């Protein structure tokens, strides 16, 4: 009964989504206020029904209702409660329902936090979101109904894939989806702007906090996914250039470009068609990511079920949404030309340079991800594109981005004196290169990549200090404390996010150059050495869990004769899925991680043990945290709330003029 209620509720949500997609748009084109205002109510109702439906599905998972096909395939009565709940989105149908729920949640957030938008603009935004939502709900109901029954019910479920029975599963997919789907708001704003022809500073200001918040979610989602892969996949890597990782990284790159482009559009009125294109692009790549994961056109660790009918449906949806948007863009964008002019040496030029570079980087990731498909489609054979391609292409593209990123804030809007800028940045740049090369020698790993990474990191850190210093120097008079307090949150957001990139690069550069690992055969009492650490194998004991059997090894780690950690990697066997899993054990430190996993037992009773030394790897995630924190500061800036009220009429007046 409960699943049927969920199913019915989902159908009602689809009807409301359709109403939300059509009525306000009709109202906007006929200028009928009554029709326009339907959008809000429909959006909120739609969210309630999707949430109820999601609740029904969760209820069936929690109560192990194995007459529900989805629960029978992805849950088990012995699975801990939390993984019975996360099992809801550990499959194709449930994850799509989560996708739809995120979209509905974002839409409701728009209806609540953007009350000050002109009614006609709001109607268009909600209409676009409603149409997108209709597409996805239709996809769910037609090809991927999560509420299918099997009668008679299965006596026991087949359990959730053990790889997914991990705390990462609790937050990684919801955060990632909130990020992916969050770009739909910027997209809807852009389409509404194209429809109305209204695209001014006020429009950019409305879009900015939404874009930034979506970007924060996406950043956090990707970072958590990467951390999860690091400790769960058991070989100590943090990024694999897997097609699905790329699928989340591409919208991140374009979303980053979009945030900066919106800043220019708001402040100077420039880049308007470019900003709109980025908004369409970021969301299109989110949709394409969904397609890549759901259709099975590429091999990936994330692909659940591959079903050509589903792939075709998502592709059709993709063609309709993106195709119509880009057609609209081609039709309306020419009217958006103009905006503030700027010189070659200006804040605008530096931001434009970085946006172009980020877009090209995104294009190169897209090319690498889809290249196997192109080659296969053109009958040129089967190939796979691995990390060497991505690293070769990505590093040279991102290097100028990082350099420009810290120069931009020194440059004035509209136009600046090149010599003045050079005087400000050259000392820091020279010092960075010296520090980077010196650092590479100091750690005894002199490769161009290490030197480059350390130089870039030094440049970000030096630049950050310099920018803060200059900001304070610009406000003469008051005490340092009040000068610090006088800096707006958005500025701190920029500062922290950029600093985070520096911290991130330190992690990437050092873990890339100094890491080491060995695989050893160990019997109880054996010791092994790695990177100055001594590992003593203390034997293996049984450690059964609720739905798995496990062997747990105890390994003491010492340095200089002093024991400082006991690691307990496990080898688990999940009964229902018949799947073995390794559970790594990590001693996390600010300057290094020591990472141990347990392999197979050999015939002589010894165990294969993997020992990993990962210097500075946690800096990667500290950097991501700083970036996300920066995004939160930026989105929380007071002026969005203040100006949203004041500027709306002023913006409209400017448009009329």
């Amino acid at each position, binding site marked *: 009964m409960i699943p049927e209620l969920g199913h019915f509720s989902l159908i009602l949500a689809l009807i409301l989504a359709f109403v939300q997609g059509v009525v306000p748009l009709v109202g906007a084109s006929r200028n009928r206020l009554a029709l326009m205002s339907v959008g809000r109510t429909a959006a909120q109702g739609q969210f309630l029904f999707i949430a109820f439906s999601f609740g029904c599905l969760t209820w069936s998972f929690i109560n192990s209702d194995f007459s529900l096909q989805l629960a029978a395939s992805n849950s088990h009565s012995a699975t801990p409660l939390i993984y019975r709940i996360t099992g809801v989105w550990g499959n194709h149908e449930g994850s799509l329902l989560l996708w739809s729920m995120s979209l509905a949640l974002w839409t409701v957030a728009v209806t609540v936090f953007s009350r000050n938008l002109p009614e006609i603009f709001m109607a268009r935004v909600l209409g676009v979101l409603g149409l997108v939502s209709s597409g996805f709900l239709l996809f769910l109901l037609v090809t991927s109904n999560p509420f299918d029954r099997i009668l008679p019910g299965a006596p026991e479920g087949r359990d959730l894939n053990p790889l997914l029975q991990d705390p990462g599963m609790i937050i990684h997919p919801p955060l990632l989806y909130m990020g992916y789907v969050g770009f739909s708001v910027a997209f809807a704003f852009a389409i509404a702007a194209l429809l109305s022809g209204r695209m001014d500073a006020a429009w950019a200001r409305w879009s900015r906090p939404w874009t930034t918040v979506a970007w924060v979610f996406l950043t956090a989602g990707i970072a958590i996914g990467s951390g999860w892969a690091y400790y769960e996949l058991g070989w100590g890597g943090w990024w694999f250039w897997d097609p699905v990782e790329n699928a989340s990284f591409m919208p991140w790159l374009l979303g980053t470009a979009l945030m900066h482009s919106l800043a220019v559009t708001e402040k100077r009125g420039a880049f308007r*068609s470019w900003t709109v*294109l980025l908004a*369409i*692009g970021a969301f*299109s790549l989110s949709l*394409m990511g969904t*397609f890549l994961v759901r*259709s*099975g*056109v*590429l*091999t990936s660790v994330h692909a659940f079920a591959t079903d*050509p009918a589903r*792939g*075709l449906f998502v*592709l059709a949806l*993709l*063609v309709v949404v*993106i*195709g119509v948007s*880009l*057609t609209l*863009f*081609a*039709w309306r*964008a*020419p009217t958006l030309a103009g905006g503030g002019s700027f010189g070659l040496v200006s804040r605008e030029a530096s931001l434009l340079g970085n946006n172009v570079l980020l877009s090209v980087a995104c294009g190169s990731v897209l090319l690498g991800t*889809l290249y*196997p*498909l*192109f080659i*296969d*489609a053109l009958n040129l054979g*089967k190939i796979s594109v691995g990390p060497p391609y991505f690293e070769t292409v990505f590093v040279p593209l991102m290097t100028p981005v990082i350099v420009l990123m810290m120069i931009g804030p020194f440059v004035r809007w509209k136009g600046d004196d090149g010599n003045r800028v050079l005087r400000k940045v050259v000392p820091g740049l020279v010092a960075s290169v010296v520090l980077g090369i010196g650092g590479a020698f100091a750690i005894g790993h002199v490769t161009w990549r290490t030197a480059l990474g350390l130089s870039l990191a030094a440049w970000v850190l030096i630049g950050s200090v310099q920018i803060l210093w200059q900001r304070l120097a610009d406000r003469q008079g008051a005490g340092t404390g009040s000068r610090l307090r006088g800096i707006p949150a958005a500025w701190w957001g920029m500062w922290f996010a950029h600093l985070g990139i520096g911290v991130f690069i330190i992690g990437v550069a050092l873990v890339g150059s100094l890491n080491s690992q060995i695989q050893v055969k160990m019997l109880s009492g054996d010791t092994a050495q790695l990177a100055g650490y001594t590992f003593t194998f203390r034997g293996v004991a049984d450690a059964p869990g609720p739905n798995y*059997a496990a062997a747990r090894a105890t390994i003491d780690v010492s340095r200089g004769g002093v024991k400082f950690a006991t690691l307990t990697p496990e080898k688990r*066997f999940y*009964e229902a*899925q*018949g*799947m*073995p899993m390794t559970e790594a054990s990590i001693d996390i430190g600010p300057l290094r991680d020591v990472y141990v996993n347990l392999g197979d*037992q*050999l*015939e002589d*009773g010894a165990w294969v043990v993997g020992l990993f030394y990962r210097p500075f790897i946690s800096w990667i995630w500290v950097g991501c945290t700083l970036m996300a924190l920066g995004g939160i500061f930026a989105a929380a800036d007071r002026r969005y709330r203040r100006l949203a009220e004041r500027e709306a009429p002023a913006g409209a007046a400017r448009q009329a003029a």
Partner: protein
Amino acid sequence: MKAKFLVPLFIFLLLAGFLGYGLKLNPREVPSPLIGKPAPAFRVPQLQAEDKSISPEDLKGRVWLLNVWASWCISCRYEHPVLVDFARNSPVPIIGLNYKEVRGDGALDVKGIDPATELATARQRARQWLVEHGGDPYMVSAVDLDGRIGIDYGVYGVPETFLIDQQGVIRYKHIGPITPESLRDVLIPKIAELQRAS
């Protein structure tokens, strides 16, 4: 409408074309170098008849399917009903290759097991699995205890299915579980074609 604003749309449509075509391709399908080559020889004990053995030699002159399976293989559970159904009126014999029944199962502790015990364990497990999963679709199943036949045939995932012709030449390899669609659209037409050719 200026042409440059149409560029994004054009790029996207090109991409969509490729994606659409990609739906028809299977990225997991790696062409087997063994296609067109003679099926590697072996002679191993049969699963059901304890005193008999089986070799590809025994099937010379017939078109047949070699289906790699094991009781620990999860996907085989999905494939099995399809095979049982197909075997009822299959135009060709299906030979099973029971692949690393004991050693392939990560749950079993088989260090230092002696070959006779391993064979007996494999037989007992495999037979029980067939009973529990709807019957035995195989004319004969070969027992590949140590996986050597699997290596010769380039097996890298279970289940896999090979189509072998009258001369003992491998004509086609299906990777992953056989579905009713793959039977209807690929395997049955290919079998018919081979049988007509003789």
